[in-house]
Structure formats: structure tokens, C-alpha cells
């Protein structure tokens, strides 16, 4: 068995039970593989110790305090926001009420211009003979 094969066969995250006699013999004679094995054991030991860590005994108390504090903050936030939101809605409503008629008025002017009617009642645009008749009447 070569080093590469041994390293491939080093159990994924140490389990010495899976190690064959041949592997043990190689590890005792090869310093590089032996070191690699030590790194794996070291990492495994760290994971084991992390798994054994216990949560803070004050966790529950801290959690309840945090939930209470969060709840108060939320309530405070909404209470502060509520009148401001209402004021904003009123002002926005008023502005829309003022601006909206102008918008529709402008569009009405530009699209529905009564050019023909204006021409009919515009004195200066009347035919010359008609003007003469008018003069005679006056």
C-alpha cells in the first residue's frame, strides 16, 4: 500500500476500528502519513469537544428578556409610527385631491379643443361679403 492509497483509506474522520493492520504498519513507518493521521485525530477531537459544550445556564432567562425587549420595541415602533402614518395619509390624500383635477383638465384641453366653434364665433374670421352685410345692417 502506497501513501496515496493509505491517505484515501484513512477513515473519514477518524474511526480507528476501520483501520487495517497494514495501514497501522504503514502509519508507524511513514512520518508524512502519520502526521496526516494526527491532523485528522486532532480535528476529530476538537469536534468532539465542541459537541460536548453546554449551552449557557442563563440562556432561557436571557431569551425571555430578549423576547420581552423585542416585543416592547415593536410596540413602541408601531405606537410612534401610527400618528405619523395617519398624518402622512391625510396629506397625501389632500395632495392627490388637488393635483388630480389639474391632470384631467390638462388632458381634456389638449384633446378636445373646439377649433371649429371658436372659428364660427370669431368675428374677424368671417367672410368679407358677410362683413359688408353686417356693416350695412349697422
Amino acid at each position, binding site marked *: 500500500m502506497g501513501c496515496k492509497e493509505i491517505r484515501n483509506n484513512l477513515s473519514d474522520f477518524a474511526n480507528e476500528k476501520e483501520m487495517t493492520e497494514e495501514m497501522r504498519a504503514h502509519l508507524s513507518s511513514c512520518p508524512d502519513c502519520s502526521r496526516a493521521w494526527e491532523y485528522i485525530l486532532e*480535528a476529530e477531537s476538537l469536534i468532539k469537544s465542541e*459537541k460536548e*459544550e453546554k449551552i449557557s445556564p442563563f*440562556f432561557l432567562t*436571557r431569551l425571555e428578556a*430578549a423576547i420581552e425587549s423585542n416585543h416592547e420595541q415593536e410596540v413602541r415602533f408601531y405606537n410612534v409610527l401610527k400618528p405619523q402614518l395617519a398624518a402622512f395619509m391625510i396629506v397625501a390624500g389632500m395632495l392627490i385631491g388637488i393635483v388630480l383635477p389639474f391632470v384631467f383638465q390638462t388632458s381634456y384641453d389638449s384633446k378636445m379643443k373646439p377649433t371649429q366653434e371658436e372659428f364660427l364665433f370669431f368675428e374677424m374670421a368671417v367672410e368679407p361679403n358677410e362683413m359688408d352685410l353686417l356693416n350695412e345692417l349697422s
Partner: protein
Amino acid sequence: MVSQTDQQLVTEFLEGNNRAFRLLTERYQQKVFTICIGFTHDKDEANDVSQETFIEVFRSLPKFRGQSSFSTWLYRIAVTKSMKFVQRDRFKKFKLSLDSLADPIGYEQSDKGNFADDRINRQETKKMLKKALSSLPKKQRIAFVLNKYKELTNTEISEIMTLPLATVDTLIHRARKNMKQYIIKYGGNYGM
């Protein structure tokens, strides 16, 4: 009261009984903490992330539809919160990598046996483990932590990650292989 199922406690909490939430927390706080420490590798940070998890549970429990078991839902939140923490922590890691670039000799010279203090050695191993885990793709990392730290079955992990069982098997296998390769390759640089 203690023998009540999770679902019964959830129902009670939704009916306004805060004591039910307390019982659920007591039941799962250590399990959530173990998942969180698998991502953070720091006791204080794991405590903070666990707290964030339970605050989120408290807020979101009214939206819990019971499509999966409470524990699966809870672990999913814990994983999400932990991953978010890891992302927030990226800046610190970046700084750490800059430090190691600024002082590469310190890492190269730290052969085994140079550290008299085991605690320092432990810190270096922790640093290495953290780097090895962060070198894994996101899904492999989650699957590895749930499998290695929480010792959940692959079926449970597939439920938490909402992935097919075969995918989870592959993820765990690849994660273990990648971790091993990283540790063998870079172990010496961390004074192990």
C-alpha cells in the same frame, strides 16, 4: 406537562400559553446550540445564534403550518440563522486571512511541538477546522454539520434541507472527503 408532544405544546402556545414555549425551548435549546456551535466554533457566538433562532421561532410560530415536524422546522431555522451569522462573520474571516498573509512565516514555522501551550494549539486547530468548513460548498457544509455535530440521520437531514435522500448521502460523502483532504493538506500550516 413534560410528556406533552411538540405539537401539543405548539398548540398551547398559539392559544396564548407562554409556558408552552418555555417548555419547547428547554427541550430543544441544547440541540440547537450544538448545531450553532458546528457553524460558529465559538461558545458565545453559538449562544447568540441560538437566541436569535428561538426569537425567530417565537415570532414565526403562528405561521408554522405543521407540514414538517416541529424539530425539523426548528433545525431549519437554526441552520438559516447560523449560515447568516457565518456570512456576517465573513468580514472577520477576511481580516483573519489578511493577518495570515501578513505573517505567513508564523504559520510556516509552527511545526508540531513548537507550541508548549496546548490552548494555543487548540486555537490553531479550531482556526484550521473553521477554514476547512468554510472551504466547503454551502450545502456540503450544512449536511456535514448536521451529520457530524447533531448526529442526525440522513433522512432527517434530507427533510431539513428539503433535498432527496440520495443527494444528502452524496453531500455528506463529499464533505467528509473534502474535509479530510483539506486537513491533510493544510494541517501543518496551523501548527498542528
